[in-house]
C-alpha cells in the first residue's frame, strides 16, 4: 500500500504525463507484490515455521537479485560478485553484534556500510574493463572472500562461524507476525518497486545507453563511467540490505555461506528468471531455490544435479528466462499485433515556423564557419588514418564527406565528435578551440552524432529511445524540442522493434535532435536503406537544416543521396581532403571521375 501512495505523489512534481512506473509495467508489479506477499502470508496462516523461514530467505535472495537485475539488465554490467557484497555486509554485522557486542541497530548500520564499501571495490574495475573481463574480476573477488575470512581467522572466527542472538526485531508485532517478517517483506516489495521505477525512468534508459554503447552515450553527453558506478551502487544497496536481513533471519554466519556459489545463484536467478523484468527474479528464486532446496528436500543428494539441470533446461527452452518465455508464449497465443505505426519525422520538421532557422543562425560571429578543423593527424599502429586533414563546415549546410574505403572518413567524423584523440591539429567549434574537449563536452556544446549501425533498443518504445540523453537544464526554448514533446504520447505508444530499418535511422536522428544540436554528424545514414527510404532521408536532412538551422556533416557512400542532399562535398583519400566544393562545381573534376569510375551517371 505504501508504494501506491508514492506512485501517485511523485508525478505531480513533473509533467502530468510522466509516470513513476510505466502503465504497462504496473500489472506485472502488482502481480509480483501479490506473489511475494502471499508467499509469506500463506505459511503464516498455515502455521508452518519451516515454510515461513524458507519463504523469508527466498525474499532476502530476491532483494539482492533485484539489485543485480538492474545492474545486469538495465546497465548491462556483468557481475558475479553480488554474493560477496551480501557476504561482507552479513559477516560484518554478525561480528559487530555477536563478537564486538554492538547493538543490533549499530550492527545493521556497520554491516550495511561494509557491504557498500565492498560493492564500491567490486565496481571500480568496471571503469576500466567490461563484459566477461568484468565478470571474471568480480568472480575472482567472490571466490576470494571466504579465503580472506580464513586468512584472518582470529578476527573472523572463520572455523566456528558467528552466532547472533535474537533481538527486539524478532518480537511479535501482531498476531503471529514478528517485526522481522514485516521488514523483510517491505524490503522485498521495495526492491520490486525499485526495479519498476528504474525501468521506467530516464535514468534507467541512460544506464542502458551507457552499458550498451559507451560511444553513443558519450556523444549524447552522458558520463558512462559515473552511470555504471551508480548502477553498481543501487545493486550494492540491495545486496547489503539482503546481507543484514540474512543475519537477522538466520542468526548465524560462516564463510561457507558466502561462497562463489551464492553469487552464481544470484546471477542465475536473474538470467533464468527473466532478465530485465520485474517478476523475473521471483521466478528465478522459485525454480532455483524454492524448488530444489525446499520443495525437493527429500532428494537432497541430487540437489546440485537438479539445480544445474533446471538452469540448463530453462535457458535451452526459454533463452529470455522464465518470464520472458511465458510472455512470448502468451503473445503468440493472443496473436495480437503489437501497437505499430511509423514516425513521421520529416513531416514534423516540415511544420517548423520559418522563423525557426534564423534564430539560431544569429548566434556566433557571422561569416565564420560553424566548425573548422585544421591539420588533423591520427595514427593507429602503422596506419596513418588522418594525414593533416583540414575541413570547414558552415552554418546551416549539409556537408558530405565521400571517398574510398579506408580513406579515413569515419576516423575524421570520430575526431570531430571527440571519439578519437588526434595526434596533432586543432578543432574549432563556434569559434572555440575544442581540441582538448572530450566527446561528452562536445555533445554538451551542441555536437550530435549517429552511428553506422543504429543504436536502437528494441524492447523500449520509440519515445523511450529518443529520450535517453541527460536531462537538460532550464526550460526548453528550442522549437524542435517542443515539437518532439508534442508527439511524445504518440511515440510512446510505438514499440521500437516494430520500426523498419529506415525508420530506425529517423529515430536516431530524432534522438540527436532532442539534444538540440547545432551540428549533426551522421555516419553512413543511408546504409541498408531502400531507394524509397533514401529519398525520404534526403528530404529529412534538408528538413532538419531548414527547421533547426543546424548543420549536418555526413560520411556517405551513396552518391545519389550526396548529390541530392549536400550543399558541399569533401572528397577524402588517404587521410587528406582532395577537394571541397559544391556538387555542381566538382562533378567534372578528374579526381571525382577517377574516384567514382564505377558510377556511370553522376547525377546533378
Amino acid at each position, binding site marked *: 500500500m505504501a508504494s501506491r501512495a508514492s506512485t501517485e505523489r511523485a508525478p505531480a512534481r513533473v509533467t502530468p504525463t510522466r509516470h513513476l512506473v510505466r502503465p504497462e509495467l504496473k500489472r506485472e508489479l502488482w502481480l509480483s507484490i501479490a506473489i511475494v506477499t502471499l508467499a509469506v502470508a500463506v505459511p503464516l496462516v498455515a502455521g508452518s515455521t519451516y515454510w515461513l523461514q524458507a519463504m523469508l530467505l527466498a525474499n532476502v535472495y530476491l532483494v539482492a537479485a533485484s539489485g543485480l537485475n538492474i545492474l545486469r539488465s538495465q546497465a548491462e554490467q*556483468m557481475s558475479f560478485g553480488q554474493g560477496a557484497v551480501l557476504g561482507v555486509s552479513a559477516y560484518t554485522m554478525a561480528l559487530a553484534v555477536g563478537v564486538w557486542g554492538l547493538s543490533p541497530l549499530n550492527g545493521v548500520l556497520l554491516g550495511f556500510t561494509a557491504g557498500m564499501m565492498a560493492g564500491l571495490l567490486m565496481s571500480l574495475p568496471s571503469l576500466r574493463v567490461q563484459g566477461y573481463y568484468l565478470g571474471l*574480476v568480480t568472480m575472482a573477488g567472490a*571466490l*576470494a572472500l571466504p*579465503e580472506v575470512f580464513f586468512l584472518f581467522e582470529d578476527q573472523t572466527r572463520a572455523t566456528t562461524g558467528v552466532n547472533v542472538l535474537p533481538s527486539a526485531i524478532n518480537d511479535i508485532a501482531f498476531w503471529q507476525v514478528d517485526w522481522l517478517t514485516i521488514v523483510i517483506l517491505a524490503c522485498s516489495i521495495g526492491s520490486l518497486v525499485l526495479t519498476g521505477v528504474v525501468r521506467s525512468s530516464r535514468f534507467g534508459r541512460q544506464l542502458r545507453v551507457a552499458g550498451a554503447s559507451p560511444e553513443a552515450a558519450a556523444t549524447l553527453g552522458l558520463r558512462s563511467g559515473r552511470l555504471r558506478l551508480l548502477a553498481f551502487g543501487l545493486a550494492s544497496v540491495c545486496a547489503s540490505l539482503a546481507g543484514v536481513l540474512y543475519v537477522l533471519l538466520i542468526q548465524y554466519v560462516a564463510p561457507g555461506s558466502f561462497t562463489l556459489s551464492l553469487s552464481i545463484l544470484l546471477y542465475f536467478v536473474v538470467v533464468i528468471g527473466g532478465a530485465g523484468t520485474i517478476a523475473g527474479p521471483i521466478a528465478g528464486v522459485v525454480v532455483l531455490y524454492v524448488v530444489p532446496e525446499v520443495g525437493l528436500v527429500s532428494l537432497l543428494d541430487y540437489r546440485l544435479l537438479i539445480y544445474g539441470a533446471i538452469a*540448463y533446461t530453462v535457458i535451452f527452452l526459454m533463452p529470455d528466462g522464465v518470464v520472458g518465455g511465458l510472455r512470448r508464449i502468451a503473445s503468440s497465443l493472443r496473436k495480437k499485433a503489437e501497437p505499430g505505426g511509423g514516425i513521421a519525422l520529416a513531416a514534423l520538421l516540415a511544420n517548423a515556423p520559418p522563423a525557426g532557422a534564423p534564430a539560431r543562425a544569429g548566434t556566433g560571429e557571422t561569416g565564420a564557419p560553424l566548425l573548422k578543423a585544421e591539420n588533423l593527424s591520427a595514427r593507429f599502429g602503422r596506419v596513418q588514418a588522418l594525414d593533416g586533414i583540414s575541413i570547414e563546415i558552415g552554418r546551416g549546410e549539409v556537408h558530405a564527406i565521400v571517398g574510398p574505403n579506408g580513406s579515413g572518413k569515419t576516423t575524421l567524423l570520430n575526431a570531430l565528435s571527440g571519439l578519437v584523440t588526434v595526434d596533432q591539429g586543432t578543432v574549432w567549434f563556434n569559434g572555440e578551440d575544442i581540441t582538448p574537449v572530450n566527446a561528452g563536452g562536445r555533445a554538451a556544446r551542441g555536437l550530435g552524432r549517429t552511428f553506422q549501425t543504429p543504436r536502437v533498443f528494441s524492447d523500449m518504445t520509440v519515445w523511450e529511445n529518443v529520450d535517453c540523453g541527460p536531462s537538460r537544464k532550464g526550460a526548453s526554448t528550442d522549437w524542435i524540442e517542443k515539437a518532439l514533446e508534442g508527439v511524445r504520447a504518440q511515440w510512446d505508444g510505438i514499440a521500437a522493434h516494430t520500426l523498419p530499418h529506415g525508420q530506425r535511422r529517423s529515430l536516431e536522428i530524432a534522438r540527436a535532435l532532442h539534444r538540440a544540436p547545432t551540428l549533426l554528424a551522421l555516419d553512413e545514414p543511408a546504409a541498408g536503406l531502400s531507394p524509397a527510404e533514401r529519398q525520404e532521408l534526403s528530404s529529412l536532412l534538408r528538413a532538419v537544416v531548414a527547421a533547426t538551422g543546424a548543420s549536418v556533416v555526413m560520411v556517405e557512400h551513396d552518391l545519389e543521396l550526396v548529390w541530392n542532399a549536400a550543399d558541399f562535398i569533401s572528397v577524402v583519400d588517404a587521410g587528406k581532403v582532395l577537394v571541397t566544393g559544391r556538387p555542381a562545381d566538382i562533378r567534372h573534376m578528374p579526381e571525382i571521375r577517377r574516384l567514382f569510375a564505377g558510377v556511370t551517371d553522376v547525377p546533378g
Partner: protein
Amino acid sequence: MDEAVIILIRGIGSGAVYTLVAMSLNVIYNATGVLNFAQGQLLVVAGVFTYLWYPDSSGTGSLPWIAVLLAVTLVVTLVAALQGWLTLLPMRSGSDQHSWIVTTIAASIVIGAVMIFVIGPRTLALKNPFGFFPLAGTQVPYVYLAISVLAVVVHLALRWFQRRYLVGLALNALSQDLDAARTAGISTLPLQVLSFAIAGAILGLTGYLGGHVIGVAESNALHYVIFGFIVAVVGGLGNNTGALVAGPVFGVLLMLVSFQLGGSAEIPLALAVIVIVLMLRPEGIFGRLHARRV
C-alpha cells in the same frame, strides 16, 4: 636454498597445469567466443578416472600407464565434446548470445554433482607414476618435468595443427571472424564441437599428469578454471604463447605466497594479479588490442 628450489619446482609445475587449462580455454574461445566455465570440472573428471583406473591408487587392475593415459584422455574428450554440443545448441537459435555463461556454469555444476556421486567430496591422492630425480638436494617427482614438457608440446602441437591442416586453418578463421567463416561456407557447428573435443583432450592429458601436482578435488574445480582464465587473460586471451609464459610465472608467485602466508592467501593473490593486469594492460601481456567498431 632447498625451500627456494621447492617453490620454484612446484610453482612451475602447477603453473604448467594452469597454462594447459588456459590453452584449452583459448582453443574454445578462438573457435566459439565461449569461455567454458566447465573446464575445471573436466580436469576433475580426468583426475577421477585416473584415480579409478590407475593400478597404484585403487589397487585393482594392472593396465599399463599409457593405456590409462589414453583411456582417460578419450573419456574427457568425449565428455567435453558432449558438453560443447549442449553449450552451442541454444546459441544457434537464441537471440541472446550470452546463454553460454549460464549453460557452461550449469554444466560445471552437473558434472561436479556426478563426480561427487562417483568419488565423494574429497581430495584425491593421485600417486606419482614415474618416480623421482634428484635436484639441488631434493627429490623431484618426474611428473613435474612431464607436465612442463606437456605444456610446451601442446603449445607446439596446436601451432602446427592450426598451420598445417585445413581444419586447423578453418578453426583459426573462426577466431578471425565467425560471420565471415559462415559466409565462406565453413560449417561452423562441427568445427566448434571439435574445438571442445581438442580442449577435452588437453585436459585429459593434463589431469593424468597434473593430478599429482595440484591435488584434484571436486570442490576446487572453479579454482582451476579461474586460475586458467587468469593465466589466459594475463597472457592475452586467445594467445597460447602468452599463456605458456604467464602460467609458470603465476604458479611460482602463488606457491611463494602460499609458503609465506598459507594456502588461504592464494586466491586473494590471484585476484590482485588479475586486477592489476587488467587495470594496467587489459589486452594482456601478449594480446593485441582490438579496435572497437564504432
